[in-house]
């Protein structure tokens, strides 16, 4: 530490992203979720349990709201007073939105949650002391706290089932906050594997577990700053930008023909997940 360093790099220490410049290089991981394709089948959620060693908490703890699903499928009904939901329900997969200006990051007293250079909202389990402030400040309520020591809780991982656990990820002990990581273990493994080739990851080389399993390909994941990536193209086609709080769709004429939006973006967390509106046929 030195004051010299502080003074010399002052401008660096004062910059912020993504508003003022583009520090994400070469990756900025992002998602796009097409709710017209999502059928609500829950395969993504199970995949997440399998990939990320999520504990099955059991009925009693679930009843207390202590479930640990990093990705949950929410089901919404139409809100007019129709007697039957005759245009169906609406399903929404909700996971950590990997906000660029994440409300959770600033409030952690120990800096256990940070922004990574590739635009992820990281969670350092070892560092976490369990103040749960991040969850309190998360508008989406997608952070999950280990209320118990699940690895030692009866019937969560009985002896045989321990063997199923993904060795690429730790088991979280009690008192630690966790959340969707965009399958960071897969991202890091992928980045390392292409390093020798002196290139960066191409689109599709890293898939999140939920994306991989989704039978209708409703989830697209990739590098937002790679013009060849599907996610980039989708964001572009929907004219959704990362660092604004109102998209073309809402503020410009003709924008209503677009479907892309981000949830609660008026709070300016700059989420990295774009949702695309569900479509319902008008002729029937």
């Amino acid at each position, binding site marked *: 530490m030195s004051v010299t360093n502080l003074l010399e790099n002052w401008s660096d220490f004062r910059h912020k992203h993504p508003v003022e410049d583009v520090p994400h290089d070469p990756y900025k991981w992002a998602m796009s979720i097409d709710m017209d394709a999502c059928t609500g089948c829950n395969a993504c959620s199970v995949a997440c349990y399998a990939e990320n060693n999520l504990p099955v908490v059991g009925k009693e703890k679930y009843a207390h709201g202590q479930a640990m699903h990093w990705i949950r499928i929410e089901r919404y009904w139409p809100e007019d007073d129709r007697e039957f939901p005759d245009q169906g329900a609406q399903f929404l997969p909700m996971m950590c939105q990997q906000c660029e200006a994440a409300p959770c990051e600033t409030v952690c007293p120990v800096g256990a949650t940070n922004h990574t250079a590739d635009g992820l909202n990281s969670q350092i389990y070892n560092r976490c*002391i369990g103040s749960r402030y991040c969850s309190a400040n998360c508008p989406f309520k997608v952070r999950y*706290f280990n*209320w118990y020591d699940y690895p030692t809780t009866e019937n969560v991982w009985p002896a045989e089932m321990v063997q199923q656990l993904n060795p690429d990820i730790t088991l979280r002990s009690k*008192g630690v906050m966790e959340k969707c990581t965009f399958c960071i273990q897969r991202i890091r493994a992928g980045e390392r594997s292409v390093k020798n080739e002196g290139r960066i990851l191409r689109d599709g080389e890293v898939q999140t577990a939920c994306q991989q399993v989704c039978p209708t390909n409703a989830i697209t994941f990739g590098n937002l700053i790679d013009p060849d990536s599907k996610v980039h193209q989708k964001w572009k086609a929907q004219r959704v930008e990362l660092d604004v709080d109102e998209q073309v769709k809402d503020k410009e004429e003709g924008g209503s023909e677009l479907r892309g939006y981000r949830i609660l973006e008026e709070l300016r967390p700059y989420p990295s997940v774009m949702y695309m509106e569900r479509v319902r046929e008008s002729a029937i």
Partner: protein
Amino acid sequence: MKDIREDIAWAKINNDVLKSLESPRKLFWVIIICALGVFGIGVGCEVYQYSTGLGVANMDNPHVWGLYIASFIFWIGMSHSGTLLSAILHLMHADWRKPIYRFAEAMTTFSLMTAGLFVAVHLGRLWQLYYALPYPNERGIWPNFQSPLLWDAMAIFTYLSSSILFLYVGMIPDLAICRDNIHTGWRKKLYTLLSLGWEGTDRLWRNFRVTYLTIACFLIPLAVSVHSIVASDFAMSQQPGWHITSFPPYFVAGALYSGCAAIITLFIILRYVFKFEEYMTLSILKKTVRLTFAISMVWTYLNLIEYATVWYSHDEVAKAVLLQKATGPYAPFWWMMNFLGSIVPLVLAFKRFQTHIPVLLTVSLLLNVGMWLERWMIVAPTFSHGYYPWTWDHDQWPSLVQWGIVFGSFGWFTLLFMVFCKVFPSVSMYEVKEMVYHRSQATKKLEATGKMATAGKGAH
């Protein structure tokens, strides 16, 4: 109304106060045993929670904060009136504070200690608490200074240590008195050690006065900042019902309010237990009660302002939280909070109740319940009714473990406080002497100028 007699012998002051260190009423021991029991329950609950996990408190994923944080704010708040009485009134030369500021300051210190406990109890990984401490370490990692929780920690540390210093510095002359009068046992050693060789020389008094004044000056903005920062825990977040700019003054008012109410309670108890009737006079009580009433009205005003700003704003989300407070699962508590916080103190406006001990004891306890509820109503409903409707209330209700720890904290506080009053003089002897001295001087002057007849006894 009877006040401290101006012609009271100084030796009697010494005697009376020193007696409180020796032979309190039996009630003292009853209180100590009850406090020990309650504290024991809390300790048991905490041990269970520590070893099993916070889940036993029955919090859940939207409701990540429960009674612990509510109680934390409550105890922080309680500490504020100690500073109010000792520092602000000191600067304002309000001499009626003198017989009661010592225990108020002790209350500040111990309620801060209790609040600190809640920070620890609340943590998921208490054993990693040191990660939150800003000290150079081999890991090269520092806490996150952006977090209002860290500001909290810093502010509380500053406040607690300054309060202890303030309490201690102000007590040195009295410790010397104790040293001079108690000649046996561990107490003698303790007082000799703590009185640092104080002999009341003019040099000591000179420096003492300036130091005491300086710390008092620091304590006032500090106290305000502490509760504003606690308010920032909420106001700095984005959550509806918390993200309110009037929170800092509102918190400060609430803090003074609950603190004053607690002072009334403790005043009454101490007065009886340690036979301080002659010093903690009803006249002082009346002043405290009037102060409390005034603050209760300030709090009521700020509370209404908060509702009004939310109600008239276009912030539908915050409005929904407010509506939910009034109509949702927390409604009984919310209405009770408003009733206890704003209606019950109206009793204090009646002169005949201002010195009516049973009424005051009841009212002050009710006010404290109301203020505790206020903190709960700040914390919990936002979790139940935040931005994201999908996660709204899951019938979250604190478990017995959580309640047990909250109750235990009252035992802990009472225990510390009562032990302090038994070991250290809880009425400031030298300052009561000063008070008596100044009053008699004033009387003399009035007599001398022959104005006695006109000024009468309205001087105090």
